[in-house]
């Protein structure tokens, strides 16, 4: 009977023999770079752009196949993973990723964002709720000011003083229409920046 030492020695020899001719294809770094670039393109295309038709026509939005009629009805989603929704009509210049995570109507208690229309309640982490409203293909208001959300350039915002609502506008790839994301005015930039991915 072979001892463990004999067996492991044979294993080493077998491993070395089996892999002797194995070498990476030339240009491996280039292939990695290529994959990186294509992954970024794919992510851009697949990430959430709120579907205009679903949002406008059904009075709600589709999250990974589930229908949320409006924010108050979006109760107790159970998964903690990020879900994405493909754009229904066109890709957008900035796409939004919304975590579908244990949303609860109670999250709204200390938020000021409007909850009617195309509103979503999202949870960014444990007990970290955020109410958002998204409108697609809107015009950029003339009083909107440029804003730089933690390194996300090319966005504009308006802050409505009566209701304390901050609306951020990102341009769609068609080059003329805009998407609007409304949140409570006090929402930190860092939370919002995570929603945006530039389209290339």
């Amino acid at each position, binding site marked *: *009977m*072979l001892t*463990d030492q*004999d*067996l*492991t020695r*044979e*294993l*080493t*020899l*077998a*491993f*070395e*023999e*089996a*892999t002797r*001719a*194995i*070498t*990476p*294809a030339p240009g*491996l*770094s280039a*292939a*990695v*770079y290529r*994959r*990186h670039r294509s*992954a970024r393109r794919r992510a851009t295309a697949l990430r959430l752009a709120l579907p205009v038709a679903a949002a406008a026509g059904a009075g709600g939005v589709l999250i990974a196949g589930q229908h949320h009629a409006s924010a108050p009805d979006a109760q107790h989603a159970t998964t903690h993973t990020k879900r994405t929704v493909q754009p229904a009509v066109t890709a957008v210049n900035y796409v939004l990723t919304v975590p579908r995570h244990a949303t609860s109507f109670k999250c709204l208690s200390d938020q000021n964002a409007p909850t009617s229309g195309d509103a979503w309640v999202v949870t960014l982490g444990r007990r970290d709720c955020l109410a958002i409203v998204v409108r697609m293909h809107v015009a950029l208001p003339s009083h909107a000011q440029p804003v730089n959300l933690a390194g996300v350039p090319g966005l504009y915002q308006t802050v409505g003083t009566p209701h304390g609502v901050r609306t951020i506008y990102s341009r769609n790839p068609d080059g003329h229409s805009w998407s609007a994301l409304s949140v409570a005015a006090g929402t930190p930039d860092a939370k919002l920046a995570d929603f945006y991915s530039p389209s290339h």
Partner: protein
Amino acid sequence: MRLDDLGREFDEFVRSASTRLLRVAYLLTGDYGHAEDLLQTALLRTARRWHKARAQPEAYARRVLTNLAKDRWRDRSRRPVEVGRLLEPGHDSSSGQVLLRHTLLPAVLQLPIRQRAVLVLRYFEDLSVDETAAALGCSAGTVKSQTHHALARLRDLLGEDTLHTEEADHAH
């Protein structure tokens, strides 16, 4: 850090480590195509976390690689079918050694991925128990027990005939 900005440092790492890592991936998957894919993904993830990985990029990439192999193994509903292609024994081997080595790798591929990874890291990469534990994200005790179980399972899979043939060859 953007991948494009990594430049020469990352290229050098890829040049120096990729052959070894590809061989590890090959032994973990039993298939060259999957191994290459795994390696590219591991390198990509290493590059994306270069600020963390740069101190020990090979160890980082190896850990990513083994995790990817574990994920892939879990996802697969079938065993690899390429096992027969794994070993091309050398002509200078005696018949018993040929038989043993010819059957060793297919047998290794029948082990659960964790046991397989332990054998590959310890007896191909020549890592210590502690280094293997770090690569697999488990304790040293787990590595020892997995090694023990893996060798015992290998003996079962190889059968007494193969092992005794090898023993006889050593005797001559």
